[in-house]
């Protein structure tokens, strides 16, 4: 774990893997001084950016960052929880007919049906958001599904598209450009301003994909 300055009101915490990112972000949010000191906690793929409220000096942010061993213990517990926890999980029904399904099959050496089985067979977990409102980066899926992003991003990806990129899976909440490999689509609204919070997938939530027809 490494702490890097990010301007005069941010501290960037570098971690080994996304499981540690999720664990550290949870621990920082739960710190008793978080409400007084922090404006936001921004998890990324390997980092957590801790942002001070106006007027709070950056040095005080160190007090809300737990030690590496506390993070390691917590992230180990997260991995076990993802395997076993089915209460409170979000189930996303997916029609697996995405334009990149065949490409993913050939990249992974799996058949198309095996790709679907792998995507639905392992629970995922929301690691962080960031690309657009309601977009969640999901981790913890079947490692055989790790594929690179498309070399040419699409200028238009339809809302509800289910994609893969690196260690992540995700669902596009609304139409946008995008470079992920698209394997299917869902009708479930990922972003609804009449809901509180408007995002269906929030940090830490467990997600299971289900083949729909």
């Amino acid at each position, binding site marked *: 774990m490494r702490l890097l*300055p990010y301007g005069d*009101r941010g501290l*960037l915490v570098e971690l080994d893997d996304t499981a540690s990112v999720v664990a550290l972000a949870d621990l920082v949010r739960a710190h008793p001084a978080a409400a007084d000191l922090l404006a936001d906690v*921004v998890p990324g793929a390997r980092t957590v950016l801790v942002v001070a409220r106006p007027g709070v000096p950056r040095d005080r942010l160190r007090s809300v960052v737990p030690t590496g061993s506390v993070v390691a213990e917590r992230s180990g517990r997260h991995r076990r929880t993802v395997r076993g926890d089915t209460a409170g999980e979000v189930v996303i029904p997916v029609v697996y007919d995405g334009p990149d399904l065949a490409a993913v099959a050939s990249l992974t050496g799996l058949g198309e049906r095996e790709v679907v089985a792998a995507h639905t067979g392992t629970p995922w977990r929301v690691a962080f958001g*960031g690309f657009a409102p309601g*977009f969640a980066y999901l981790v913890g899926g079947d490692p055989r599904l790790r594929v690179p992003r498309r070399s040419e991003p699409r200028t238009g990806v339809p809302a509800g598209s289910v994609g893969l990129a690196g260690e992540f899976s995700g669902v596009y*909440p609304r139409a946008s450009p995008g470079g992920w490999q698209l394997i299917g689509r869902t009708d479930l609204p990922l972003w609804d301003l009449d809901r509180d919070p408007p995002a269906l997938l929030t940090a830490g939530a467990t997600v299971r994909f289900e083949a729909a027809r």
Partner: protein
Amino acid sequence: MTALLVRAVGGPCLVQDAGRPGYAAIGVGASGAADRASYALGERLLGNADGAAAVEVVLGGLEVEATGVVWACVTGAPVPLDVDGRPEPTGAVLALQPGQRLRLGVPPSGLRSYLGVRGGFGVPPLLASRSRDTLSGLGPAPLAAGDLLPVGRDVAGEMLVDAVPPAAYDDRPVLRVVRGPRDDWVDAADRLVEQVWRVGAASDRVGLRLEGEPLTPAPARGELPSEGALRGAIQVPPGGAPVVFGPDHPVTGGYPVIGVVADADTDRLAQLRPGEQVQFRWAQ
């Protein structure tokens, strides 16, 4: 209901307040007034509660008509102001009578002015803020002629100060930058502070594009996994032309951030016009 009726707009006019920090984990950025100090000054003069909504006006051109008695104040870029043709100063609280029109001309310096009213604008909030986020399209739509802006009730106290001196902006400001976190992802990061940069035409609330001698990515660094971002972050894409994030920056970015403009200096960034020059120096 007392309101301001929008008669004409020039540059983009957006409802902004103190922003919506705290929602990065669901992909929503902080947004809010680009020049927070100018926005907050106007709100203080009007005796408004924290977080009341104002209108951020780019390069003047806004004309509004009061439907009742409205106390108004314009801060930030020092636009020539008039009420039914009578000149008025910026930084002063003005009483608009029903039917009177307030017009904002083009400022001689600076870019963004803030039109506040006592009570703030009572448009519906979203995730605890009335800010327009131009990147994600959240919040009130940009103003158009014919819009009715209701005056709200976000009042905290009396109006104790009548006027403050108008703002003025220096040529080629020198802004402080905290080095890192990824300054080793370009060769010779010091070249950021050793040259004069020009503000590119494509600059907006998402980012200020800097034109000059491009920086050189360090060899064999590969791809940076996406990480959290803040306003003031100076991101360097592979082409080497830096982008300084504004209030509507993405929640996470995929290019290295070689330095972050000191938080207080990001308000000055918000007043830079395309074509103007800016310099940076490393903060201690």
